[in-house]
């Protein structure tokens, strides 16, 4: 049982993925090849010989942003069904084949791509390509499997609402902040939207969004390069293009002023809060400075946020912040929690830190410490073949090249107080313009949260993540 972990959202971990060492000790992307098949499928291969394993990631562009209106979770169900029977194998036979080989294979819908990833022994390279091709090109989408998986996804969301609420709060936050923009929609769906998804919706999603032109295949590890290229060619080069174009995303609008969503969980011992606004996109030019400043603000144990909410006051087990950066700007968010009767005190303190960041900026010593921290932790994020497959997938998905990693150490080392100030002004929301979500015992905290802005209420048990009446 981990006991001291700083509460770090996925966004913070993702940011750490972008900071190799500067100079002699830097992380340089190991050699890899990138090939485009005639049908548009991209094949990326990075040989790594340390262990006789091959890690893979297959990206199918589109993801949850291609879900039909009111049917959030269609992409997630499509992804989940890829391994529930494909080619000549039933769902059980597929799982048994993977696990019988000591392998792993899992598919999930992200916001902008469905990704299938896993790992096999090098000796099972041919089997790995066969299973990938079956799952992507020949999924069975059997009605009984569809019904079972949909019911399970719905029940899993209910179970998540019976668990530590910090895991779900981001879904409420994104929906409340982005509204009808595709980034507002939960990638896994809600209980209500999943109930509306039919097997026909899944078949339609598959026809529109799966095809050779949407696919990127990444392999890192102990590959037989020639055999792998041949197997991929044979399996994928005749795959037809997807039926539809990839959805074009407009940047979501930022929130102005403040508003509050109160999610009632009667009897909750603690209040969980998420404070956010629109942040920046994946290709934000000052990315290195962004990482360094967020590290100082809410990305490590001694961050400004954790110092105020945990170390100095004992109000919370942890407080953190992070950016989610997509093709267009996603959110910046602060997350923490505190016992019910200190809800207002903790939120006040979090807002004060944001005002302080804008008012006083960050000092030169603090910057030097954060630069060292970002650089020092980075090699640990790129240690295994699986790490490299994921990092290359990120480059491919967002149209970045290897300079995104290779050049990053120097960029981090070059962050100055001036670039930090620019990042604070352009990427971090002002304390007056924020969307605030609080999950807690509404009877006890309704008055405390009213001072932050107009309050909309829902309940944790309600079958979706949005405010009542929201479209």
């Amino acid at each position, binding site marked *: *049982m*981990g*006991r*001291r*972990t700083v509460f770090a959202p996925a966004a913070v971990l993702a940011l750490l993925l972008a900071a190799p*060492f500067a100079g002699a*000790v830097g992380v340089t992307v190991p050699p890899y090849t990138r090939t485009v098949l005639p049908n548009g499928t991209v094949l990326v291969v990075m040989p790594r*010989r*340390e*262990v*006789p*394993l091959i890690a893979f990631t297959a990206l199918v562009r589109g993801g949850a942003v291609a879900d039909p209106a009111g049917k959030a979770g269609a992409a997630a169900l499509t992804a989940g069904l890829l391994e529930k029977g494909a080619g000549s194998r039933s769902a*059980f036979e597929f*799982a*048994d084949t*993977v*696990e*019988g*080989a*000591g*392998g792993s294979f899992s598919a999930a819908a992200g916001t902008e791509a469905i990704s299938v990833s896993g*790992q096999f*022994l090098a000796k099972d390279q041919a089997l790995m390509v066969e299973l990938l091709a079956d799952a992507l090109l020949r999924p069975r989408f059997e009605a009984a499997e569809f019904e*079972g998986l949909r*019911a*399970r996804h719905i*029940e899993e969301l*209910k*179970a998540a*609402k*019976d*668990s*530590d609420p910090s895991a779900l709060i981001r879904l409420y936050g994104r929906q409340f902040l982005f509204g009808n923009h595709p980034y507002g929609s939960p990638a896994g769906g809600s209980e209500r939207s999943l109930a509306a998804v039919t097997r026909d919706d899944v078949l339609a999603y598959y026809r529109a969004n799966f095809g050779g032109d949407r696919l990127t295949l990444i392999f890192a590890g102990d590959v037989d390069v020639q055999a792998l290229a041949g197997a991929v060619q044979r399996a994928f080069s005749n795959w037809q293009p997807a039926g539809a174009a990839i959805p074009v995303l407009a940047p979501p609008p930022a929130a102005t002023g403040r508003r509050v969503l109160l999610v009632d*969980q*009667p*009897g909750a*011992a*603690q209040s969980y809060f998420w404070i956010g606004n629109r942040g920046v996109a994946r290709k934000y030019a000052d990315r290195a400075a962004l990482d360094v400043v967020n590290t100082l603000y809410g990305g*490590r*144990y*001694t961050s400004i946020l954790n110092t105020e909410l945990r*170390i*100095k*006051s*004992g*109000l*919370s*087990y942890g407080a953190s912040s992070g950016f989610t950066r997509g093709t267009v700007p996603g959110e910046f968010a602060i997350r923490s*929690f505190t*016992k019910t009767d200190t809800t207002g005190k903790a939120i006040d303190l979090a807002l004060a830190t944001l005002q302080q960041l804008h008012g006083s900026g960050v000092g030169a010593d603090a910057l*030097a*410490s954060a630069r*060292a*921290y970002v*650089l*020092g932790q980075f*090699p*640990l994020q790129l*240690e*295994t073949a699986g790490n490299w497959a994921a990092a290359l997938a990120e480059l491919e998905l967002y149209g970045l090249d290897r300079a995104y990693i290779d050049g990053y150490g120097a960029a981090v080392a070059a962050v100055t107080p001036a670039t930090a100030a620019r990042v604070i002004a352009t990427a971090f929301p002002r304390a007056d313009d924020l969307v605030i979500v609080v999950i807690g015992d509404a009877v006890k905290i309704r008055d405390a949260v009213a001072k932050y802005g107009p309050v909309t209420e829902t309940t944790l048990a309600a079958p979706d993540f949005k405010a009542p009446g929201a479209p």
Partner: protein
Amino acid sequence: MHPKIPGGILAVLSFCSLPAAHASAPDEIRAMTLDNGLRIIVWPDHDIPNVALYNFVRVGSRNEAPGITGLAHFFEHMMFNGTTRRPPGEFDREMEARGGSNNASTSDDLTTYMDWFPSSALDLVFDLEGDRLGHLAFDPKVVESERGVVYSERRLRVEDDNAGFLAEQVQSTAFAAHPYHIPTIGWPSDIEGWTLADLQRFFKAYYAPNNCTFVVAGDVEPEQVFALARKYLAPLPRQAAPPPVRTVEPVQPGEKRVTVERRAQTPLLQLAYKAPRADDSRNVTLNLLATILAQGDASRLHRLLVEERRIAVNVDVYLQEGFDPGLFWLFVTLPQGGDPDAVLATIDRALASIATEGVTEAELARARNLTSAAYFGQLGTINGKARLAGEFEVMHGDFRKLFDLPDAIARVTRDDIRAAAKDLFDARHRTVGILAPPTTAAAGGEG
């Protein structure tokens, strides 16, 4: 680049029915014991310019008593909060400014401290670790503030989390005598009640060099690490061995049951069977049995409960391996409206069938391969190397036993699995936990 995995381990990964070659510990791993009893193991690996350092302290909630439950875990927090040489917060400030991060965890048996840092910070990290073991300070203000942090952690993991809430009840019910009934996070009144004197006594008793095991894996050389250990850790004075845990849990005379009525959409069922201590040769078999039961979509219970009958949303399994006999856990999440007793009856039939008819050769092979792959994956990182080497040294008496594991996995037979299941799944020796919403329509929030 050198191969990361010692050769013998690969034998089992070729996944045939041939016996695996016995694997000896790689020569590059070196170990020494300082005069004060502190054990230190070094595993060089230069693939990345970083180091993982673990310090395993042999103390956990098993060493607590009424009034000081949760103290081992609270102490874990206090180890970051200042020494007579460094003010509170300085440990983290110095480490992070040099590119390092850290964490710590507490279990029933152990308190484990971890640092991950660039090898250029090696000297600093030894200085910091030696400082807090030798010169810890207890600032009363910091103690009060940290109490709030720990209580917040308890609310997060137990009070606002149904699975955590039920598991605490099951564990505290399962043990009548042995201190494994104490929740590691501590009971609320103790979190609010322990005193500065309790902390000082605890430090004196357990934070002795002869009760610590350091493991350093990564971009280092053994002699360099040993020199730093002599400089920063050798001055720590050896102390009397901590008091042993004398209590032996009596044989459980019959099934126990704990029922929690609580706001919930999805009911929960947990089963906890009495299981052997970590250093028991049966555990290799029990871990394979756990994998056969509930790891992966092709596992027996997942297939039966989640895919075929659809009477569960999720099933998980966990073997608690400690210094004393612990628990073999099954965790089941039911769909809304599900009937825990009906699920229990289905599980009982499935477990009975393994105890009588055993498992198939394919099931055993699948479990062997998944277990080996997981083991192999852990050895692919400096963090995994440090953790595994330390766990084997501390829980099994010698880090070298880590390299016997593939051989032990290969030796397990279907008969072993059947015998282990027959022995383990005795309803008289289990605790059943059920969490469900109140059945009356008028029920509101929980207490």
